[in-house]
């Protein structure tokens, strides 16, 4: 059933201002990654990189190599080839996705290197990257038409096929014929797991789960992914998990009202967060009356989205809707 058709020709896909102007992909597939995606890990010899590469391999992801400057030519502890540069790695392995665990001071540069080397999707897991670095990296990747996910994000998983990131694999339920499957978009890592777990325990499979990350400047945003899920025939409903800070959720609400016909359930974290304080994530702050949870909830409700009152009722709200 066309499962081998990938998101090819990535340079046709433009991300920016919430528009995804690529050709509509009318095949029944998950979004962003699937079993044919081949992945390299930048920072594969680091502690986090090595651990999570092992986890991804265990899940069945097609990990094809790693990058670690100065260690090219060797083999990683997983038996994967290690290269000095991303360009070498892509040339040798044909990888199309890069998963980055490089330390924050060098991570934005690593993302640009991955894009320059020809990866079509860059998953930036690293936390604590300077905002100006991200502004520059995002512009660089946008100009090349390369999709960026993150930074400060758990990554993306298409259950049963491909896990690129740090989420625990076992909590996910792969989509099967005849069952409903859910697409999940979230600014928070652990809160995504929470939503996934609630779906799985209620017998709802997931088509793809995407963590977009908690930084103020990031790659793929709610609107981009809402459009992908709307166009993805395998996705029956969408869960979006937002938090305080910024106006991305408000933009998503406007987008949902105009373009999304699939049922959407939302949860916004930070109802009790005090204004002016940065709540862990660099982007999670209420300032000048902007970015409050209540304004986001109001905008989403107005757009016809079912908003869960508590993080524990995301799954139930969805079951009721289906």
């Amino acid at each position, binding site marked *: 059933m066309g499962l081998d058709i990938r998101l090819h020709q990535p340079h046709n896909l433009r991300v920016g201002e919430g528009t995804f102007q690529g050709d509509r992909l009318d095949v029944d597939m998950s979004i962003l990654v699937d079993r044919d995606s081949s992945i390299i890990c930048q920072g594969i010899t680091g502690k986090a990189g090595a651990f999570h590469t092992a986890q991804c391999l265990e899940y069945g992801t097609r990990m094809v190599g790693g990058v670690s400057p100065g260690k090219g030519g060797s083999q990683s502890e997983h038996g994967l080839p290690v290269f000095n540069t991303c360009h070498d790695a892509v040339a040798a392995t044909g990888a199309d996705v890069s998963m980055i665990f490089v330390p924050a001071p060098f991570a934005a540069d690593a993302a640009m290197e991955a894009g320059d080397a020809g990866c079509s999707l860059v998953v930036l897991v690293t936390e604590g990257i300077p905002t*100006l670095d991200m502004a520059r990296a995002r512009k660089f990747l946008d100009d090349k038409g390369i999709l960026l996910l993150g930074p400060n994000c758990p990554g993306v998983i298409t259950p049963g096929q491909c896990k690129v990131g740090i989420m625990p694999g076992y909590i996910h339920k792969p989509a099967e014929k005849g069952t409903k499957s859910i697409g999940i978009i979230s600014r928070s890592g652990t809160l995504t797991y929470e939503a996934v777990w609630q779906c799985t325990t209620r017998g709802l499979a997931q088509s793809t789960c995407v963590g977009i990350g908690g930084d103020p400047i990031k790659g793929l945003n709610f609107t981009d992914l809402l459009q992908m899920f709307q166009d993805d025939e395998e996705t029956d409903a969408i869960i979006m998990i937002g*938090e305080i800070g910024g106006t991305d959720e408000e933009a998503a609400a406007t987008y949902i009202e105009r373009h999304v016909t699939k049922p959407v359930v939302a949860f916004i974290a930070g109802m009790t967060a005090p204004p002016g304080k940065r709540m862990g994530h660099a982007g999670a*702050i209420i300032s000048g009356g902007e970015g409050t949870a209540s304004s986001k909830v109001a905008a989403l409700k107005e757009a016809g989205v079912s908003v869960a009152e508590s*993080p524990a009722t995301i799954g139930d709200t969805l079951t009721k809707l289906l």
Partner: protein
Amino acid sequence: MRLTFRQQALRPLVPIFPPWIDLSRQIPHNGRTVAGCVLWMRVLRAALSGRIGLTVRFGVRRYTDGFETQPTNGRYTMKVHEYQARTLLSEVGVPVPQSSVVDTVAQATDAYAAIGGKVVVKAQVFAGGRGKAGFVKLCDNADEVREAAEFMLSNRMVSVQTGAEGIAVKKLLIAAAVDIESEYYVAVVMDRTKRTPVVMVSREGGVEIEVVAKENPDAIVKRWLHPHMGLLGFQCAQLVAALNFTDKAQARAAGKVIRGLVDVFLKYDCALAEINPLVRTTDGEILAIDAKMTFDDNAVFRHKTLQDMFDPAEENALELRAKDHNLSYIPLDGNIGCLVNGAGLAMATMDLIKLHGGDPANFLDVGGSVTKEGAIEAFRIILSDKKVKGILVNIFGGIAKCDTIAEALIAAAQDLGFTVPVVVRLEGTNVDRARKLLAEAAIEQLIPADDLTDAAKKVCAKVA
């Protein structure tokens, strides 16, 4: 009727008004009070007729108007003192009035001797409300400077933002007062939506920019930097044009200020760099009278200058201790301590406690790469808050591993001893090993929970 500091300073010029005129009423057009407008008309008339010299001191208005009580930027970040912001600005060639920073009364009078004329003495603290608390003083002579310095250095400053105990003032800024002809606003701030810094200028300087943005958004002109190329020449020219200088030298000077501010922003990874007001003096000089800067916490590692400027005395001690262990901790008012991994889940856990009738005592995200020692420190920090009557541990393991938290829980129970009930909910990476460890340890105060709702209900019931 309440006059602002600026108005009080010029009080002798205000005639006695009939009681039916409400001087504190705000004029909708510009947000100034009736008293303020009448005063200004009179001052200007007097100045024009040559009866008085128009001398208005130094950025006082913003402190009295509570400008600093409003965070103007999207991120809570490292701050620097006003005098430090001036240093950074003068480094890139932005002209600022002559000033010096002092720690003692003797130094203050020495500084006055060097500057002379009218000066303003300002306490260097982060908290707002300095003007109202009497910690910004306009002084005419050495005696007044000595008096002001003595007062500020020997008393703790108490304002709305400091709490009842107040804060000690360690440094004072003594700066020359200048004759202001007009005031402007210039700022660079990170725009999350456009994903690049934006330069904003306005001819309505000296007032709260949020007010201008709300009432007269057209008065603010914005140009977005190219993330790679920075401020382009034509953009700078357009910004200067928006400030409407007729004199070419003044326009050039303003352009230099704008470019300088952009340079500082990019060089030091600012979250906000703001000059308010930028003034034109009666002599036609362009000067940055007051500046405010905050910095991207994620980038402080690469700026030695900023690390040296960091003032730990101005930060919450517990928050700093948490930061040292890579924890992000924010104390709140409730009695249920939270230990969670992930900022989103931590916020959601707080929301959930509230939903079940409890009140969270803190936000605490242990982060992904949490170690056993870090998690023990987290328990220590939570327990050092005496309000805490119960703890909710909510871990959904991803990068963070459940067994690490379980080991920390067991160690904390042995080392610190839990005096309050601890409800534990674990899921995710290595959860089986974690459950086994906890079962073997059999900690008395520990209450396992199956899911989120169960955990919230249990902890709320325990503290109720």
